[in-house]
């Protein structure tokens, strides 16, 4: 457990020292979601309708921006080898890196969502649902993304390949995340969407760290 906390702290401190990279992903999210209302114009009904989809797609893409860094920097300077050779279980260290990624790239999206939602004229109950779906969904994005980040280590043009690998895996999260907001706006029950998102999160938490750990070991070899 200690190893996990050390890893989270270390990665967060690294991000603090190099703020620009983390802020880029965040600004991307804000800018992309702000462009749509500007481009479409003042059709409030249309904006409300497309808001969940656009915000969720922007969240997927901005998560991707941060993913590349998850293992690549440690791989390049040899730190990843040292992590593999540490007496601590590698799976804990990898989980720590995933958590740190979520805190940097996922959590801010959840907190920004209400502000972004206002631009799309979402009502308060939709904003709550949007935040809740992002809160459940973005950890899944970080988890699934870690597999792609680890598998494409040391591959030339890895970031492009990673997008191709990972984006299809994000589809269920996108469907249920955006679907819940839409269902809420037309007065349907959203508990099914939330249950499925929660199930995805639990499944990903249980299995993905092991898969990513195996992928990291392959990359090191």
């Amino acid at each position, binding site marked *: 457990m200690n190893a996990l906390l*050390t*890893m989270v702290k*270390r990665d967060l401190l690294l991000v603090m*020292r190099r703020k620009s990279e983390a802020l880029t992903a965040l600004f991307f999210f804000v800018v992309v979601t702000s462009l749509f209302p500007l481009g479409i114009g003042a059709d409030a009904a249309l904006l409300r309708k497309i808001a969940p989809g656009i915000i969720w797609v922007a969240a997927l893409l901005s998560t991707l921006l941060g993913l590349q860094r998850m293992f690549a920097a440690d791989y390049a*300077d*040899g730190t990843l*080898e040292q992590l593999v050779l540490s*007496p601590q279980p590698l799976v804990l260290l990898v989980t720590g890196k995933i958590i740190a990624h979520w805190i940097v790239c996922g959590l801010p999206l959840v907190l920004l969502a209400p502000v972004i939602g206002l631009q799309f004229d979402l009502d308060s109950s939709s904003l709550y649902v949007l935040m809740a779906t992002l809160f459940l969904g973005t950890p899944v994005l970080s988890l699934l993304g870690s597999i792609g980040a680890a598998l494409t280590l040391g591959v030339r043009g890895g970031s492009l390949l990673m997008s191709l690998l990972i984006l299809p895996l994000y589809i269920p999260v996108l469907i249920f995340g955006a679907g819940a907001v839409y269902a809420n706006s037309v007065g349907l029950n959203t508990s099914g969407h939330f249950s499925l998102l929660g199930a995805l999160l639990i499944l990903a938490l249980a299995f993905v760290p092991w898969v990513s750990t195996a992928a990291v070991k392959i990359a090191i*070899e």
Partner: protein
Amino acid sequence: MRGENGVGKTSLLRLLTGLSKAESGEVLWNGQSIFVDPGAYHRQLLFLGHRDALKEEFSALENLQMYASLDDVNLTAEIALAALWRFGLRGRENLPVHYLSAGQKRRVLMARMLTRQASLWILDEPFNALDVNAIEELEHLIAEHLEGGGMLILTSHQVIRLPKVKVLDL
């Protein structure tokens, strides 16, 4: 371990650490394969490769402390500072590693070797980028490690002035 460039010195070292897996044969530690209980093996192992594995954004002191906590070694700030001072990094302990020269980075690694408390050191060309004084200091450090009952496997293109050194020519 000696040999021409590309003959496989580093590959052999990586096999010994368990970073790579051998196609046939196995590496034993205390009579059992290193893959049976990797945690116990890694606790006793310090491997330093070509890359310095230091985080450029962190200071030398932070790097040492980070590795100590990842390696599960109890390291107080005083001991860490003393180790850095011993290798001539007094006054640079809080400077981001980014600002240190290649030789100074190797000195940070020497401080890590001193504080790591591992019984087996596997070093890939540790004498690279070191000045005359640093080479002497590293030789002292290695001699101390060996006197304390430690083991060492290293590759080098230089002549090693160490007692009881066995040379493997690849």
